[in-house]
């Protein structure tokens, strides 16, 4: 009687399970249809312009602010192969720098006017394609765009809401992917351009400008060669993001002097290190290795104690009480140079593979020498600022130290220690069982006699 009742109960449970499973998958389908992305009505404030808006580095001139923002971003409808710049393997790069520009989606489609000119449209007059043809390497970073700013910018979703939904056809757990990754992560990757990497504001030139080192530029050939660079995918919170996301960025670093809490500005540096427009002899002696009475970017590095001692002495003489070097780094969002969709990342393995893990967690080099241990890496959306570590005499961003609680990558499970332990235990188990089995076979005749 009891057994019959139990059997009926089990059959009932099985029916209920099948029903629950099918209703759950139906519910999932409906939820997928209803999928809501971060709602953005009209213009969304999306400034990643830390330099200006967050007042982190108030001394940086707007000229370089613009340069930082460029991050190797070129907005033109030209193909890379058509560019007049000296780009490595240019002829084989038969694709446009930016798909939006190529479709004549101009700057003002996304950028609004400056905040103080809210009621006016952005002053967009020049044709999209003029910039790159005219720009040589020297003028690229200095070239200022039109009167458009990064204060109020439309997001991808504003125009591509329907296109975003199309991802559901092939991308598993679409909402999770959209929550954890920005569109740019897959739609922007390699840069066929160079960008500013570090600004040495600890020793300015005679025009009170910093020494800038670049990424993606080989300056050794007679005509500098643009070798390009790969966007750094890191976890941070953009202005319009709810959470930390994986976003492509260019890590930019600033080496500055601080007097307690105050930054030492370029004017004071010039006053300390120059006699009118001529470099102080002590600075020249310490920094000018080739004795050409000029300082190259490399020579201007604070890569020895002797250089720091001279600079501190001169700064104190100029009235600075307690000068200390500080390095500040932060990500600059890369949002231009959107690739044609055929070139976008679409395979799961691009992110979910052992190789991709090593790429995602690879340390990002910030500076190839260590001028100071006072390093702040500002990652928007995190409270922590100590993400730096020193590896082989270089300062790097330790991506493993970035918060993971907002994100689970499948490849996060590949913890080297757990993996090693699991493989060791597995091998030990197999060997143990094999040994045990061999002994049993060897003694089997004795056992059978018994």
């Amino acid at each position: 009687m009891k057994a019959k009742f139990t059997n009926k109960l089990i059959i009932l449970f099985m029916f209920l399970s099948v029903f629950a499973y099918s209703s759950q998958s139906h519910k999932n389908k409906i939820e997928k249809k209803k999928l809501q992305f971060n709602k953005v009505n009209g213009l969304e404030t999306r400034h990643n312009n830390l330099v200006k808006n967050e007042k982190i580095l108030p001394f940086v001139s707007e000229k370089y602010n613009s340069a930082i923002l460029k991050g190797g971003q070129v907005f033109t409808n030209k193909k890379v192969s058509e560019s007049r710049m000296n780009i490595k393997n240019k002829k084989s790069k038969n694709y446009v720098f930016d798909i939006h520009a190529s479709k004549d989606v101009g700057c003002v489609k996304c950028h609004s006017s400056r905040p103080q000119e809210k009621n006016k449209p952005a002053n967009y007059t020049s044709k999209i394609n003029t910039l790159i043809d005219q720009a040589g390497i020297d003028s690229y970073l200095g070239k200022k765009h039109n009167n458009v700013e990064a204060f109020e910018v439309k997001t991808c979703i504003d125009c591509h809401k329907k296109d975003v939904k199309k991802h559901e056809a092939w991308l598993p757990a679409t909402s999770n992917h959209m929550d954890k990754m920005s569109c740019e992560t897959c739609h922007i990757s390699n840069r066929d351009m160079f960008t500013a990497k570090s600004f040495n504001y600890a020793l300015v030139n005679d025009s009170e400008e910093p020494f800038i080192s670049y990424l993606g530029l080989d300056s050794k050939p007679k005509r500098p060669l643009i070798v390009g660079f790969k966007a750094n995918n890191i976890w941070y919170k953009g202005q319009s993001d709810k959470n930390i996301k994986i976003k492509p960025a260019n890590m930019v670093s600033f080496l500055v002097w601080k007097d307690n809490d105050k930054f030492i500005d370029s004017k004071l540096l010039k006053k300390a290190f120059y006699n009118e427009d001529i470099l102080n002899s002590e600075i020249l002696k310490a920094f000018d290795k080739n004795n050409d009475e000029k300082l190259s970017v490399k020579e201007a590095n604070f890569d020895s104690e002797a250089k720091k001692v001279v600079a501190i002495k001169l700064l104190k003489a100029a009235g600075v009480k307690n000068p200390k070097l500080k390095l500040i780094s932060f990500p600059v969002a890369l949002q231009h140079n959107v690739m044609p969709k055929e070139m976008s990342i679409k395979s799961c393995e691009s992110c979910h593979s052992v190789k991709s893990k090593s790429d995602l967690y690879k340390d990002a080099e910030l500076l190839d020498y260590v001028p100071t241990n006072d390093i702040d890496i500002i990652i928007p959306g995190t409270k922590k600022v100590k993400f730096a570590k020193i590896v082989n005499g270089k300062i790097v961003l330790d991506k493993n130290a970035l918060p993971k609680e907002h994100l689970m990558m499948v490849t996060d499970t590949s913890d080297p220690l757990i993996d090693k332990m699991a493989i060791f235990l597995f091998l030990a188990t197999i060997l143990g069982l094999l040994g045990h089995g061999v002994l049993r076979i060897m003694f089997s005749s004795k056992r059978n006699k018994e």
Partner: protein
Amino acid sequence: MKTQKNTSVIMFTLIERIWHWVQAFSMIMLTISGISLHWPGVIIKSMESASSMHHLFGYIVTINFVIWLIYMIFTKRIKIYFPKKEDEYPMGLFKQAKFYLFQIYTSNKHPYHATPENRMNPLQKVAYISVMFIAMPAQIITGFLLMNGSMSVHSALIIHLIIGAFFVLFLFGHIYLATTGHTPLALFKEMIHGFEEKVVDNFKKDEK
């Protein structure tokens, strides 16, 4: 030595056997897909297929587990997991371990004879209580947490991973120990037809 089924002693009921083989197949599929998710492309090349497969068999194992639990509770067969006097805890654990480690090579006489009412030895009881009442529920809960979008629970992922690795080791140990019956295949046969496998000579003597 030969064995033959003794139809008078039922070791595993039909539901238990179906449950066991569904569980066995699902665990193998979960292992294959789990390894492919952990080290993408290692066995199943497509991450999407590995993910779908892991989810499907995850559901099957969950349903299977609930069926097993209901069945074991309502038929009171769950008692076979509970320690009994004849298990001689805690010394029974050492006695059984000593047999597996040293005596098994020369002797066929297991210290604890399996009966339908008490078919597990003291070591097996500890192992299966850990697996069925601790590891399996934990694995199901963490699995659902990860599957239903709680991707932020990084600790859940680590727990899921460690238990998954433990299950793989357990699977190998389980299959190997299944060869330690009267003959290497005797216990496998019991799990197929459900009856006790008895040594032929003894069986004939019993019949006389």
